[in-house]
């Protein structure tokens, strides 16, 4: 195992975050605050409690999930796409590193960044609502698995994309709708029966539901289903990455 390489990639990627501190930390704090002002205070005061939880508190897990998903994908996809785009990827390709080491470096850094973001959102939220986390360990597990698996998805996206449009099209056209329709800001009980059934095909629903259960013990689907679902998704993504490196897909001609 080339630990120095894992560390080198990890540090390099984290240094990129440090250079964009405002974008990485200040921006999410501001957006989260806006969500709480608009949804929590302004609209939330007119919405009744959802299953015994105030609306402001109810949206916290969804908000964390929204940020985890979008940032994991964008961090990881950009991390590998940019070296490909400017050509510096030659160094990684000619280095004595295995796929797993590359993945640990890039995906590990991307996941770390989005987990840090999740923590920042949680802290910001605590200024607006009274936080209650019923199962902190399960919450951490969910956050870890989600950040890891969606960073892997982002990594796949970054390898696949050969222009900036492709890079932004997946998060915009796929992830954002799935998150918004996945019960981040509402309980599916509020939907007509047909849409409730359709929602069950949305993988993000399981993530939001699982994370919300770890906070308030309320869930749309069994928390174990959520856990195994995200675990299975993570393994499939890892499989795809291994296959991509094995065949050299869009990396080694």
């Amino acid at each position: 195992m080339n630990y120095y390489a894992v560390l080198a990639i990890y540090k390099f990627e984290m240094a990129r975050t440090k250079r964009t501190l405002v974008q990485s930390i200040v921006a999410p704090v501001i957006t989260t605050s806006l969500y709480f002002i608009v949804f929590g205070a302004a609209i939330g005061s007119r919405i009744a409690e959802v299953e015994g939880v105030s609306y402001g508190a109810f949206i916290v897990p969804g908000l964390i999930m929204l940020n985890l998903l979008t940032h994991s994908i964008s961090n990881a996809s950009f991390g590998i796409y940019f070296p490909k785009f400017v050509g510096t990827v030659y160094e990684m390709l000619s280095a004595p590193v295995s796929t797993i080491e590359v993945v640990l470096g890039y995906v590990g850094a991307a996941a770390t960044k989005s987990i840090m973001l999740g923590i920042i959102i949680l802290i910001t939220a605590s200024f607006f609502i009274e936080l209650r986390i019923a199962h902190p360990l399960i919450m951490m597990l969910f956050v870890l698995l989600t950040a890891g698996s969606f960073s892997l998805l982002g990594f796949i996206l970054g390898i696949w994309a050969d222009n900036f449009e492709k890079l932004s099209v997946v998060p915009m056209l796929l992830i954002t709708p799935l998150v918004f329709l996945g019960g981040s800001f509402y309980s599916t009980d509020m939907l007509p029966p047909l849409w409730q059934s359709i929602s069950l095909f949305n993988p993000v629903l399981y993530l939001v539901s699982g994370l919300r259960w770890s906070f308030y013990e309320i869930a749309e689907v069994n928390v174990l289903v959520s856990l195994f679902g995200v675990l299975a998704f993570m393994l499939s993504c890892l499989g795809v990455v291994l296959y991509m490196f094995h065949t050299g897909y869009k990396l080694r001609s």
Partner: protein
Amino acid sequence: MDSSSDSILTVSGLNKTYPGGLQALKDVNLEIAKGEIIALLGPNGAGKTTLISAICGIVKPTSGTVTVAGHDIQRDFRKTRSIIGLVPQELTTDSFESVLNTLAFSRGLFGRAPDPQHLEKVLKDLSLWDKKDNMIMTLSGGMKRRVLIAKALAHEPTVLFLDEPTAGVDVSLRKDMWNIVRELKEQGVTIILTTHYIEEAEEIADRVGVINNGEIILVEEKQHLMSKLGKKQLTLELCDALATIPEALQQYELNLAADGLQLTYTFNTQGERTGITALLDDLKLAGIEFRDLNTTQSSLEDIFVTLVQQSS
């Protein structure tokens, strides 16, 4: 090469066909000795970069094998890649990183423990030490080229590939670059460089390989190649114009310039007898007087152009 025991790199039967159908390498065989400088010459698109990329692991060979220090580049990629350094042709750098950080990254990526002293030495050798904290994007093109060399040396490789190290580099920097290459050779590093500049190969290489259309046309000791293929020409400036070459001088296969005032005699430097004395005697007998004479030796450039034309 006379002995394979001191060989550091062996390429055998290497083929590369790109998905589009372009055959970039055709049955390439090459043996490189430890500590030598070999220059690969060839026109654009000859396959120089593909060959280097295949050895370094950036391009997957279609068939054939490559061993570096006795290790197969696919089976033992960790061993082979950790002893190879690569300076790419394009100026691809992490624009927003500092010089020192990008070197530390390279060293780690190639599996070496941090060693600030070594990085300092590399940067000083390349006159980059005072730029160590500068963001790479603020450096000039020549400095960026040095950074790429420094990155390639960060993990103390014993085999260094320089893909057109002096393309687009000014004359003084080119000379600096040659000095760096010579110093590396003194430290025992094997250097494989590609270039269009024949002058460069002539200046620093021990051996020269010529590639065209994905094939290695020849690999020779530079001196040997130049003396084997190099021709000398004797040019005589005549006092009076000649209309034709006299019968008595036909055996010399002379060339008469259009104005009739210049005679050119081409001879082989390796020949036992160059024939110059006889020619001069025969000229005297024929009553042809000349007022000046000079000789020129063909450069590696002429040899290269001839070879590439023949192979095409």
